[in-house]
């Protein structure tokens, strides 16, 4: 007793030899050649290649010109920096030294003229005898105003 699957497959078993001619290497190569079926690792490479084909290669002369200009600018910049640094290292500039000395002298003069004057001391308080009457005077005026208010209140209530 067999299942339908077994019967159907056994009927075509003789075709196995011919089917074996389909090579796994060819299929794997088809995957790699297909733009849709690229392995994940090569996707980045494909993007770079696409960028190269669409953005760099059609404008290659312009890009080359720009590159040449940048190389010249970079070389000039490098050369000038090198000469400046070597010159500075070999000869100390006398004018700069003189200017520095002048500035230092000026600074010393300024510091000397700007010596702070001592702060004015607070006025010492007067004798107590002079201060007393003033306090009493104030207290007296406060009392008189309180009395007038009170009498007013009584008169209203009565």
């Amino acid at each position, binding site marked *: 007793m067999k299942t339908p699957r077994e*019967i*159907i*497959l056994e009927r075509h078993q003789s075709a196995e030899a011919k089917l074996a001619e389909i090579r*796994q290497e060819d*299929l794997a190569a088809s*995957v790699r050649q297909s733009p*849709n079926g690229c392995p994940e690792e090569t996707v980045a490479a494909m993007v770079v290649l696409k960028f190269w084909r669409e953005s760099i290669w059609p404008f290659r002369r312009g890009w080359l010109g720009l590159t040449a200009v940048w190389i010249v600018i970079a070389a000039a910049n490098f050369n000038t920096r090198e000469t400046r640094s070597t010159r500075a290292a070999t000869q100390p500039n006398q004018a700069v030294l003189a200017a520095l000395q002048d500035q230092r002298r000026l600074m010393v003069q300024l510091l000397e003229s700007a010596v702070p004057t001592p702060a004015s001391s607070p006025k010492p308080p007067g004798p107590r005898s002079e201060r007393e009457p003033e306090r009493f005077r104030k207290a007296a005026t406060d009392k008189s105003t309180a009395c007038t208010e009170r009498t007013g209140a009584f008169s209203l209530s009565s």
Partner: protein
Amino acid sequence: MLVVAEHEQLPVREARAGEPEAWGILLARFRLPLYAYVYELVHQEQTSLDIVQESFINAARHIAGLQRDEKFGSWLFNIAHQKCIQHWRKQHPEEIAIDPQDDDFADAGFGPQELLIRKEQEAEFMKLLDQLTVPHRAVLLLHFVEDFSLEEIASITRAQIGTVKSRLHYARKALRKLFEENET
């Protein structure tokens, strides 16, 4: 004995990465069932071999578009089925006519593993397969050979699930009738 594993692990991801060994495994797993399916539909050896080869090459070219790895089998059969349709359109356009048996049905048949055929019935079984119309034969072969679900068969044959059910029912009924006649 050949048995279809229910949840077999196929190296689809590796195949997508272009590994030849993975394609070797997929070839060994599917080339004979696919050939059997195609041959039973077109009945020409060389055409069947060509369709199987072209299906695998197409699968390799478009495997990046396959979203669910576990559907590789039904996807591959779908490619082959479309190639068979292209072949029929060239050879026998009248054969893929509208199916008259597309009625709804109550499933009372047998599964692909439940049906066991005696040796003396094998020839009748194959003869019966040949007698079925192409749409019925396709559905029954997909059911028997790979035990595809109704949804998978519907996607392979690009038919409605109701139509697939109906065709399967009709094909099973015809098969049962044959076995009953033989037994009496």
